[in-house]
C-alpha cells in the first residue's frame, strides 16, 4: 500500500511527458470525463424524450423492455466486438478507430437506465395529480412539461446517476485498447507488472466515480422541487422518491 501512496504522490505522474508519451493524471481525468460526457449527452438526447413520450402516452412500452434486455449483454464483449469491426478501418491514423466503438457501447449502456427510469417516473405520477392538471385546462404538452416532468425528476435523476456510474466504469475498461482515461494506469500497470500503478489507477477511478455521483446528488437537490422530494419534514420518514424507485425497479426487472 505504501508503494501506491508513493506512486500517487510522485509529481512526475501528475505531468504530461511528451518525450515518452506518458499522459499525466490530470489529463487522463479530463479524457475520462470527456469520453463519459459525450456518451451521456447522446444517451440523454435519445432516452429522455423517448421515455417521456412513452410514459405520457402509455404506448410502445415494449421499447423500454427491449432496452432493458440489452443490459444482459456484457459490456466488455460488445466493446471488443465493435472495436474489432471498426478499428481496422482507422488503423495507424487516429485513435478514432477505438473511440467510436467505445462511444457506441457507452451510449448503449447509458440508454436503458435513463429510459426505464424516465418512463417509470412519468408512469408513476399520481393519476389524481394528472387529472387535476387536465381539469385546470392544461393541454397534453403542458401536463407533460409542467406536471409530469417535475414530478418524475427524482426518478430521472436516479436513472441518470446510475447511467453515469456505469459509463464511467465502462470508460475505464476502454483503456484495454490504446485509449486514454484513468483506466490507462490500470492496464499499463497490469501489462508492465507495475502493481503500484495499477492499484493507484483503481483508486483514482473509484474517487472519480464517487465524486461525480456526489456532484450529481447535489445538482439533484437543487433541481428537484421540495414539494416532490418531500425534504422539509424533520421526521425521519423514508424518502418517497427512493421508495417509489424501489418498487419501480422491481417492476422493471421483474
Amino acid at each position: 500500500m505504501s508503494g501506491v501512496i508513493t506512486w500517487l504522490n510522485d509529481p512526475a505522474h501528475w505531468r504530461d511527458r511528451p518525450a515518452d508519451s506518458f499522459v499525466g493524471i490530470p489529463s487522463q481525468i479530463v479524457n475520462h470525463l470527456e469520453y463519459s460526457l459525450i456518451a451521456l449527452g447522446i444517451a440523454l438526447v435519445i432516452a429522455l424524450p423517448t421515455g417521456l413520450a412513452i410514459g405520457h402516452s402509455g404506448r410502445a412500452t415494449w421499447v423500454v423492455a427491449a432496452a432493458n434486455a440489452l443490459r444482459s449483454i456484457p459490456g466488455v464483449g460488445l466493446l471488443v466486438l465493435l472495436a474489432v469491426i471498426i478499428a481496422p478501418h482507422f488503423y495507424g491514423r487516429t485513435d478514432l478507430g477505438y473511440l467510436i466503438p467505445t462511444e457506441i457501447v457507452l451510449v448503449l449502456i447509458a440508454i436503458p437506465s435513463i429510459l426505464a427510469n424516465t418512463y417509470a417516473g412519468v408512469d408513476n405520477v399520481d393519476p389524481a395529480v394528472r387529472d387535476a392538471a387536465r381539469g385546470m385546462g392544461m393541454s397534453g404538452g403542458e401536463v407533460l412539461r409542467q406536471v409530469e416532468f417535475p414530478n418524475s425528476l427524482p426518478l430521472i435523476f436516479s436513472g441518470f446517476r446510475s447511467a453515469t456510474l456505469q459509463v464511467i466504469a465502462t470508460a475505464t475498461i476502454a483503456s484495454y485498447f490504446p485509449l486514454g482515461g484513468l483506466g490507462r494506469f490500470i492496464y499499463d500497470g497490469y501489462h508492465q507488472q507495475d502493481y503500484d500503478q495499477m492499484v493507484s489507477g483503481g483508486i483514482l477511478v473509484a474517487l472519480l466515480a464517487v465524486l461525480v455521483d456526489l456532484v450529481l446528488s447535489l445538482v439533484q437537490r437543487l433541481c428537484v422541487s421540495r414539494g416532490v422530494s418531500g425534504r422539509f419534514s424533520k421526521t425521519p420518514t423514508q424518502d418517497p422518491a427512493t421508495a417509489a424507485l424501489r418498487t419501480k425497479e422491481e417492476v422493471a426487472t421483474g
Partner: protein
Amino acid sequence: MRVPATTVLATDANSSPWHFWTYFMDHRSDDLRYLWDHVYLSLLPVVVGLIISLPLGFIARRYRWSYPPIISITGLLYTIPSIALFVIVPPLFGLKSLDPKQVPIALTIYSVALLVRVVADGLASVSEETLLAASAMGFGRMRRLLSVELPIAAPVIAAGLRVATVSNVSLVAVAGTIGMDNLGRLFDEGIQLSTPTPYYPPIVLGIVLCVLLALAFDGIIVLGTRLLTPWRRVAR
C-alpha cells in the same frame, strides 16, 4: 489493407461470426473451464453476499438509527467501478496482486452492497398488522422472523438476487481483461487473433455464453421463487 487469403489463416471462412460453435468445439476443454469458472464466480459471491446481508439488513430494519449509515456505506461501495474494485481488493485484503481470490471478494462486496438494502426494504414491506397477528399467535421474535417476515419479504429479496446475479455475469467478464480465467478470456483471445483482420468466433462465443448464463440464472431464480412462495400464485 486486404491481405491475400492464402497467407493469413484468419481470413478463412472460419472467421465468420457464425462459426462460434466450431470455435467452441475446437477449444472445448479451455472453453468449458472458462464457463465453469464463470458460473462459480457469478454465483458464489451472491450466495455469500446474501448470507452476510441477511443479518445486516435485519439490523438496518430493526434499529432505525442504523439504517442511514448502513445504506450510505453500501451505496458508496456500489458506486465504485468494477475494474477499480478488482485491483483495489488485493492490497486491502493482504493478497498478492492478481490473486484469483480478488474477483470473488470484490463481487461479494458488490452483492452485499446491493442486497443489504434489498433485505432491509423487503423486511420493511411486511405490514404492521401481520407482525402483530404473528406475535398474538404466540410467535417468538426469531420464529416470527423466519416463518413470517422472511417468506413475505422473499419476492423482494429474489428481485434483488436477480439483479445481483445478472450483473455479476457481466462483471466477471470484466475480470477477464486483467487475465483472470473466465469467459472474459474469450474476448482477449479474440483481440489477439484479430490482427491483422477481424476474427469473430471467440468474441461472439463469449457474448452468447454470457447472455445464456445470465438468462439461465435469471430463470432459475424466478422458478425458485415461485416454488418457495406458492401462496402468491393463488393470489393472482
